[in-house]
């Protein structure tokens, strides 16, 4: 693995698993996050991609941006297809078919493919305990089809299907907490990350793929096109999202919450909201509502992180032979 022999990037390998020449928008945070995530991995990975921005911009017949084996079928089934590949490899290895060692399956999807239409498939795959990783690249709307709202769109955001008008202030519901849903399945590893903190992102993706069993990583990917902001501010926005507490960075390792970054004081959410055109219309009332809710959610998260679950010691009559849950 060739590494840049220089200051900070001596930690990052040079080889790209994702080639330039793709058709992402100028300044695409999702393309950046994907590039970083796959820089953290070796080339023993099979990628299952749900329909969405990152699938479309990387795969126009007859070209592909991927140096890894890659499959795209439909919108909502990335997790199900990944289950099939994982099971296929398991069965074939057992039957002695010569296959590369230590092949990992990574399913990637956008926020729509994850928290809306693909929720069932993900829930099923996590419950069955397949050895795969699901990475959600969350740009907070159905961006590829033209910026329509999804359940991951934040409260008050203007999208084409939750537009601002006389009778509406934008998205009417709070952002669906997908990492919590994944954690509720009691999987060994859940993490949130964003491309404004690339080393944290790469470490988490590495950890997720190396963890045996299902893992879930939720990556906030700034979309300058859909969020209506300048193309060069994507990293600034993603850092502000973390520093205002809107998108906290944390890990859930075997049901134990762990914050990735200690913020002694959260920045006001206004700092984050005002640089994005999709929040331009918000009144001070709504901003205050958002501020309060963000603080509440952050507090809940901190409590979980500080709370170490004590495991009850059970006295078994028949001995300690346990069936391992897959």
């Amino acid at each position, binding site marked *: 693995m060739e590494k840049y022999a220089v200051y900070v990037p001596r930690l990052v390998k040079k080889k790209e698993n994702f080639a330039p020449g793709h058709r992402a928008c100028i300044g695409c945070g999702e393309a950046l996050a994907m590039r970083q995530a796959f820089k953290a991995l070796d080339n023993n990975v099979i990628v299952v991609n749900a329909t969405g921005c990152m699938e*479309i911009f990387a795969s126009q017949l007859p070209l592909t941006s991927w140096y890894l084996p890659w499959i795209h*079928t439909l919108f909502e089934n990335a997790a199900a297809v990944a289950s099939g590949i994982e099971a296929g490899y398991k069965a074939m290895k057992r039957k002695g078919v010569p296959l590369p060692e230590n092949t990992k399956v990574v399913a990637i999807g956008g926020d729509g493919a994850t928290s809306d239409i693909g929720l069932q498939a993900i829930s099923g795959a996590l419950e069955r305990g397949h050895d795969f990783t699901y990475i959600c690249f969350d740009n907070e709307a159905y961006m590829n089809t033209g910026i329509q709202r999804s359940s991951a769109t934040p409260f008050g955001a203007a999208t084409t299907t939750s537009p601002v008008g006389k009778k509406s202030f934008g998205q009417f519901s709070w952002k669906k907490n997908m990492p919590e849903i994944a954690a509720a399945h009691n999987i060994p590893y859940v993490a949130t990350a964003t491309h404004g903190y690339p080393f944290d992102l790469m470490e988490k993706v590495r950890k997720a793929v190396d963890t045996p069993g299902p893992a879930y990583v939720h990556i906030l990917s700034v979309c300058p096109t859909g969020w209506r902001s300048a193309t060069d501010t994507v990293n600034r926005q993603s850092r502000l999202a973390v520093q205002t507490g809107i998108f906290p960075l944390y890990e859930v390792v075997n049901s134990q919450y762990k914050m990735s970054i200690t913020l002694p004081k959260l920045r006001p959410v206004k700092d984050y909201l005002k640089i994005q055109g999709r929040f331009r219309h918000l009144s001070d009332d709504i901003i205050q509502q958002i501020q309060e809710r963000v603080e509440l959610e952050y507090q809940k998260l901190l409590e979980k992180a500080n709370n170490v679950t004590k495991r009850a010691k059970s006295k078994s009559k028949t001995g300690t032979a346990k069936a391992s849950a897959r």
Partner: protein
Amino acid sequence: MATRVGVEVSIAIADAVKLANPDVVAAYPITPQTHIVEHLAELVANGELDAEYIPVESEHSAMSACLGSAAAGARTFTATASQGLALMNEVVYVAAPMRLPIIMAVANRALSAPLSIWCDHSDLMSVRDTGWIQIVAENGQQCVDNIICAFRIGEDRRVLLPVMVHLDGFTLTHVIEPITFPEQSEVDKFLPPNNFPLPLNPDKPVAMGDFAPPIIFTETKWAQEMNICASKKVIMEVWDKYEKAFGRKYSPVEKHHSDGAKVVLMTMGSVGETASVAIDEMRDEGQDVGQVRLRLWRPFPFEELREALKDTEVLIVLDRAISYGGPGGPLASEVKAAFYDQAKKPRIVSFVGGLGGRDITVAGFKDMVKKGTEIARTGSKNEYEIYGVRE
């Protein structure tokens, strides 16, 4: 030595799948296919079948998991019926152009509404245009034989297409029939290991499922069409080899005293066997009748059909599904289309019956043939006739 046993057809299908030694079975239960997936789970649990059994959370995920598994190069099987087939519809459409060999047993059952768990062909017709190879079985033996052939056909490098084996729900899945099972060693000789040419493998990366702009889409679809048409040759070859290995012959259009018969009844599915009894009885009474049974639904056997019916004067086609507001019986409308440009063609009368599990008796078939012959003579103001409805 092959063993002949009396066994429920669903169990027999699971046993046939076991003989084929799949790598992955992804299945979701739905009446009337439940016994197939239950028995497969039992075989895996007992170690008799070395496969990964994925108990998926919906049929859509079942077929999606099959896509992944076939793309990885594993031998894959699933089973479903009506609502499940409808739910996985978009995934079924994806499997064929992506050339992923998946074998699926479909226990034909009526599509809702109203909810019906009993047999008809509305689900079979709903996947007509998906590009899968589709074989229809009429009895348990045919199910077992065609499941084994399906693996060989689908995974053949000249074909590489998913294959559906249709069988009637309840009328076949839940009845006990005498079935001869080939030996495992014989099946191993007949069925080579799966060898998908471009699987997902980190040593040789490929990208599957790119999107196609208009400039290239037509070429991909024509390639799909040319491929399924070319697969007919392989299907015939595999059936031929099966006959040599196991003694049972299959052809796309099975003839039952239809050569030279003036009036021919055409059926698809297990009703065909009841109809055969009726035809035999009518022949004993001196009537000039015969029967053809369609075995290969897709690719449609145009040549064999035209050849089998070249001297027929009246063809009565029984459908077990309706295309609402359209030509009625989908099978009949396809047969009519097959004969439209021919210089000599039979008068084709379309009957729809047996919907939602309603039985057609031997007497019923005799009645149908009589009515059909009459309508062929007088004509009818209806596009098709509905059989057995209470007015």
